[in-house]
């Protein structure tokens, strides 16, 4: 029998998948009485709250855990201060996927984004000019250091979204490269 802190029947049953951003799949099955099965074995887990911290206990291990970011079914979780990203597939989303028929055209452009927050100091790229993978395109000042941002693809600079002096946040698009 699965151990949990809350009462029985509090989880929607069915197949669930947690997909890592490296493509690894963790497949679970939750039964009608909320037992969680993984690789054909019922898992004995326990989720506890203590002094404002959440812990997950499994076997000999008990680790502090916290969901630090979430966007619908995309999660970022911190466990032992290490971050893991998962996309969750649920019994409902499987059904929804079967109904979808549209296909996304393959993307011909890629964005270069800011790897950390900072200020744009210098832009070496120019709209309309080609760059090679590895070329330095921009200098970003952050945490008192100057960081050279390089292009991870080769192509033509389609659009530059920032100008010198702009402040950017992490993941803000800096420029669009047409491959």
């Amino acid at each position, binding site marked *: 029998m699965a151990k949990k802190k809350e009462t029985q029947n509090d989880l929607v049953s069915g197949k669930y998948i947690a997909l890592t951003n490296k493509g690894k799949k963790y497949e679970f099955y939750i039964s009608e009485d909320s037992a969680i099965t993984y690789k054909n074995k019922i898992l004995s887990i326990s989720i506890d709250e203590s002094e404002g911290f959440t812990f997950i206990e499994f076997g000999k291990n008990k680790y502090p855990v*916290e*969901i630090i970011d979430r966007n619908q079914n995309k999660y970022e979780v911190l*466990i032992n201060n290490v971050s893991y990203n998962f996309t*969750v597939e*649920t019994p409902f989303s499987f059904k929804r996927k079967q109904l979808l028929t549209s296909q996304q055209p393959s993307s011909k452009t890629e964005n270069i984004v800011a790897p950390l927050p900072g200020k744009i100091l210098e832009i070496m790229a120019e709209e309309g000019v080609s760059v090679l993978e590895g070329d330095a395109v921009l200098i970003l000042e952050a945490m008192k250091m*100057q960081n050279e941002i390089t292009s991870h693809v080769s192509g033509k600079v389609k659009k530059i979204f920032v100008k010198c002096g702009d402040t950017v946040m992490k993941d803000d698009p800096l420029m669009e490269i047409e491959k």
Partner: protein
Amino acid sequence: MSIKSLLIANRGEIAIRIISTAKKMGIKSYVIKTTKEPNETYLQMADEVIEFPAKHDEIPEFLDIESIILIAKKHKINAIHPGYGFLAENPYFAKRCEEQGIIFIGPSPDAIYKMGNKTIAKQIAGKHNIPLLKGSVESIKSFTEAERIAEKIGYPVILKAAAGVGGRGMRIVEKSSEMAKLFKLATSEAQKAFNDSSVFIEKYVRNPRHIEFQIFGDKHGNVIHLGERECSIQRKHQKLLEEAPSVAIDDTLRKKMGEEAVKIAKAVNYYSAGTVEFLLDSEKKYFFMEMNTRIQVEHPVTEMVTGLDLIEWQIRIANGEKLPLKQNEVKINGWSIECRINAEDVQSNFSPFLGTIKNISIPRSKNVRIDTGIREGTEITPYFDSMIAKLIVHGENRELAIETALNALQKFKIKGIKTTIPFCKAVLNNKAFRLGKLNTSFIENELKELYFQEPDEELMAALFVIYSHAKELKSETAAVLNYDKGKHLTPWVLNKRIKSL
């Protein structure tokens, strides 16, 4: 003790550190409140909080010399402790304190100036026959000059900002084709950070150990050293983990290097706390690098192995007292390690993590000391650096110190932000680290993974996510079902209703 009141021109954990010693000595502590962090912990610990006068200029509060001096004068405060960073190594600030009759807790303006300029410091070291790395003694004006000198010394070389501190304004140049670009980056970074674009050039020693000696002088000409610290675990010249003593230093080498450190301090009539930095190559040859004329972030490891309070020593020396110990009375006991815990995302290249600390649990035990300025509710902002705590341990020997550190790191719980704790665990668990095989390229060469993963961690993370999500789905469907109780719903309608939640 003529110092009855002390203004701390700093914030965060070092402000708290200084307050704690001031309290012990019965000295009234004053701190400054800024609009950038009006609720910080250090404000609650001091005897009196002074609000910084409204700002109409761009100068950050803790760099505003005249305003700080005015605050001290207005409140008739005897002395100012600058902490580390900010104005700690600003000779003009030290001089202004002197001119205004305020005791500066630190060395003389002249010593700060001379040792603060790497070019001058090297010239003084050279004059006293202290071993130096081959390089330029004068600042370099152009990249062509840099190229010429580099050809003479032989690549690889390193460009360093003459007025630089904390590893900023440094660039390693492997070959001449890189010199033009790197010279430009180094000089512009130096200009921005220190308002002085001068750089000098030095032979680059591959994989050295960073060994620094804590020295202390008094105003009566006495100088002693308190042993070394090894600070080789660095990333982009920022120290992440320090220890005292060093595996590489035996009693003979300690005595020799200690004497050199004392010699250079005496050469500038040094008093108060100071640190003399050396590089130690693989053949145990040492080279003077620079001197830091302030109390350092990692001073606690020296305190743990000597049993001394270095902030108290600083205040006593500023008060005119003689050094409390003679060189032969200094004893080093056991081993100490310090882990710097920063609000950084190790998995995203240590990028600064901004957020609010939702909860924190600090381990308290014998042999574990945590110096921190944060608490629940603290907001990590981009205004100040990312260090949130120092975890310092002591053990009878190095192995015990490592075990104590790992236990303490596991007990250190923090919610709401990402920290470098898994990085500290990776270093402490690393085989080469445990064998003491350290050098400044340790992180690049020895760490296969930058963060430590406990057994089954990813599986348990996945489980937690699925569990949380499934639970949420249940409460959403329950809400929908309750609303529609009694109505007959086809599965498609129910699905649509849930989709729209």
